[in-house]
C-alpha cells in the first residue's frame, strides 16, 4: 500500500526560465523528490508566487534569482550567486527559457531575426558555457537544455526558431562529447508541440500531436535521472523526425510544413 515518492540524494539544481510552461511542472516534480532549487526568471513578480508554490510542495530549499539570460555579466555570475543562495555548489542546471517568434505571417526582419536567434541560441549557449566551467570537475553533475524537434529540420513555418534550436542541439552534442570523460551528463531535450502559454492561441496547440507540459516534464525528469543523452518528448517525435529528416530536399522544398 505505498505511493510515497521515491527519494534520492538531494540535488542542488538551477532551473533557468522557471516560469516557462515546461519548467513549471518540471520544478514541481523536482521539489517532490526533495531537491533544492534556484529558480530564475526575468520578472520578480512572477517568480515569487512560483517559488512559494514549490516551497509548499517540496521539503528542500527553493531560492529565487532574478536573472536576465542575455546579460553576459549575470550569466558569468550565475553559479556563484546560486551557490550563495543554496549554501552549496550546484550540481545540475536545466535551461528552459525561450520564446517562440511568430514566423507564420511576413518574413522576419533583420532585428527580429537577431532577437529570435539570441533568445533561442545565444543566451542558452552562454549559460551552458558558464555551467560547463562550473561543473566540469564535478563527476555526477548534469546539464540539460530544452532544444526542439524544430531544430532537426528547417521548415517554412518556423526556421528561424528551428535554426536557433539546431545550433543549441549541436552545441549540446559537442559539450556532451567533451564532458563525458569527466563524468558529467549533458541532456538534449527535444519536445514537439507542447500546450503552454508560449503556444496558446496557436492552431498547432490544438493538434492531436500536442502534448501536455506535465508529460514533457515527466520525460525530462526521467531522462535526467537516467543520465540520457537525447530525449524526444513525447517519444513518437523520434520516428516522426527520422522520417522527416529522410525526405530528400528536392521533395521537402515543395511541401507545406
Amino acid at each position, binding site marked *: *500500500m*505505498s*505511493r*510515497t515518492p521515491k527519494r534520492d540524494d538531494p540535488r542542488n539544481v538551477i532551473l533557468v526560465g522557471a516560469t516557462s*510552461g515546461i519548467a513549471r511542472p518540471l520544478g514541481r516534480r523536482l521539489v517532490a523528490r526533495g531537491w533544492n532549487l534556484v529558480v530564475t526568471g526575468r520578472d520578480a513578480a*512572477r517568480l515569487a*508566487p*512560483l517559488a*512559494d*508554490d514549490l516551497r*509548499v*510542495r517540496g521539503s528542500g530549499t527553493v531560492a529565487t534569482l532574478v536573472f536576465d539570460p542575455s546579460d553576459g555579466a549575470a550569466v558569468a555570475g550565475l553559479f556563484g550567486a546560486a551557490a550563495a543562495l543554496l549554501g552549496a555548489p550546484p550540481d545540475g542546471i536545466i535551461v528552459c527559457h525561450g520564446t517562440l517568434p511568430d514566423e507564420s505571417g511576413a518574413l522576419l526582419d533583420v532585428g527580429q531575426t537577431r532577437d529570435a536567434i539570441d533568445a533561442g541560441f545565444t543566451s542558452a549557449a552562454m549559460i551552458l558555457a558558464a555551467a560547463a566551467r562550473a561543473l566540469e570537475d564535478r563527476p555526477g553533475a548534469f546539464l540539460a537544455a530544452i532544444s526542439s524537434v524544430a531544430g532537426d529540420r528547417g521548415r517554412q513555418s518556423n526556421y528561424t526558431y528551428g535554426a536557433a534550436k539546431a545550433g543549441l542541439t549541436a552545441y549540446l552534442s559537442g559539450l556532451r562529447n567533451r564532458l563525458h570523460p569527466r563524468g558529467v551528463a549533458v541532456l538534449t531535450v527535444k519536445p514537439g508541440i507542447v500546450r503552454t*502559454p508560449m503556444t*496558446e*492561441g496557436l492552431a498547432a496547440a490544438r493538434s492531436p500531436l500536442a502534448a501536455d507540459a506535465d508529460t514533457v516534464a515527466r520525460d525530462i525528469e526521467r531522462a535526467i535521472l537516467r543520465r540520457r543523452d537525447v530525449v524526444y518528448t513525447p517519444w513518437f517525435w523520434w520516428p516522426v523526425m527520422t522520417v522527416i529528416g529522410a525526405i530528400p530536399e528536392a521533395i521537402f522544398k515543395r511541401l507545406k510544413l
Partner: protein
Amino acid sequence: MSPAPQTLSGWGRFPVGDSVVATPADRAGMARALGGDHGAGIIARGLGRAYGDSAFVAGGTVVETARIDRFRGFDPQSGLLDVEAGVSFAEIIALFLPRGWFLPTTPGTKYVTVGGAIAADVHGKNHHRHGSIGMFVERIDVMVADGTVVRCSRGENADLFHATLGGMGLTGMIMAACFRLVRVETSRVTVDYHRTADLEETLTVFESGDAGSEHSVAWIDCMASGRAMGRSVVMQGRNTLLGELSPEARRDPFGLPRKRVKSVPFTPPVGLLNSLSVRVFNEVFYAAHGNRRKVVDLDTFFYPLDSIRHWNRLYGPRGFIQYQAFFPRKSSLDGLRELLSTIVASGAASFLAVLKSCGPADDAMLSFLEPGHTLALDIPYRRGVIEALCGRLDRILLEHGGRLYLAKDALMDGTTFRAMYPRLDEFLAVKRRYDPVGLFASSQSRRLGITPA
C-alpha cells in the same frame, strides 16, 4: 489571435454550447482575459465537473483556471491552506495526505478545483456533522468585473464573501482561497455497512447512527418499487486511527493502494446504462453488501467512480443529467417517497443514486443544504421525456419546500429557481455592486434568469 470557439459541456455532457476559451497563467493574464467584448458573458471553469451548464456560456467566453494552480502557503499549526483557484482536490490530497492532512469535506470526485468547489459550495459525506466546504473557508480572493482583486471573508467585504460562496462564479472569478485542512491519522476509513429494507428504515438508520459517524451516506436502489422502495446500503464511517492498523500497515499509515485506473476510451453509440443493466447492477450491489464492518482506503470510500476515467461516456452520445434534490427534515420522508415513486414509475434508469442526511446550513446566499435529506441520481437524457419528468420532480420539490442543487441542474426554469432560493434578490444586489454591467454569466445563469437571457 482570437481563437475559434470550442464546444463545451458539463460532466453530464448535456447541454452543450460554444464558448471562446482562454487559459491564463497568472493574475495579469486573467485581467487581460476580462478585457474586450464577451458577447453572452464570461465565466470561470475549473475541471468541468459541474453536471449541467454552469461552467460555460454559449456565445461567450470561458476562462479556464487550469494554470492558476499554485499553492501559496500552508500553516502546519492551524492546517490553513492558501491556494489558487485552479488547484485540484486530487493535488491537495497527493501532497498533504502523506503529511497527515485531509480535506475538511469532499464531493464524490477529487477532480474538482478549489475555485469550483467554493463556487458550488460543495458538500460531502460529512455534511450532517460539519456542513459544506464554506464552513471551512476563511477567505476568498475574487477578481471582479473591473479587473481588481477583492479579498473577502466573514469580516471583510462580507457581502462579496457570502455571495461568492455558492455563487456559481457569477460575482467574479475566484483567484485564490484560504481554507482549513483537517488532521487524519491514516488514509483509511472504518465503515459500517447496513442494508435496509425500505426508505423508512434508511432514514431511521441515519437518525440513529449519524451522530456517532463522521461520514454517512446511502447507496439507494432507485429501481426498487412497492414495499422495497428506497431500500439502501447505508455506509457510516469514521477516519481510522493509527492504533487500529495492523503493525504492518502502520509502517505506511498514509499509503494508498495503487489502483489500475480503468477508462471508457470512447463514447459508445448508445448508452450502456439502461434499465436492464442498472437493474442487474443494483441487485448485485444490494446482495453483495450485508451488515458488516470493513476498513477501506480513502479513494475507495470517497471516490469510487474516480477509478473509471470518463465514466460519463457510458451514458452515450446524448449524455445524462444528474438530479440532486434537497428536502428539509420535516417533509423529507413524504417528499422522498413521492419523488422515488415518480422516478420508479417513469422507468428512468439511475445508476449510482445516493441519499444522505444533511446538517447545518452555511452562510452562503445561494446555500443549497440545511438539516434534512438530499437525494442525487443520474437520468440518461432523452429529449422531451426528461424535461417532462424533471418538471414533475421540480413540482414535488416545491410542494415540500425543497430545492435543486445548482452544480447539477441543467433543466430547471427561472420561476422554479426563484421559489427555491429565497435570498436571490440579496445575491443579485451584491452582484450588481461588483459587476454592474453583468459581465459574469453562464448558460445556466441565463436560463435561470439570474442574468438576462
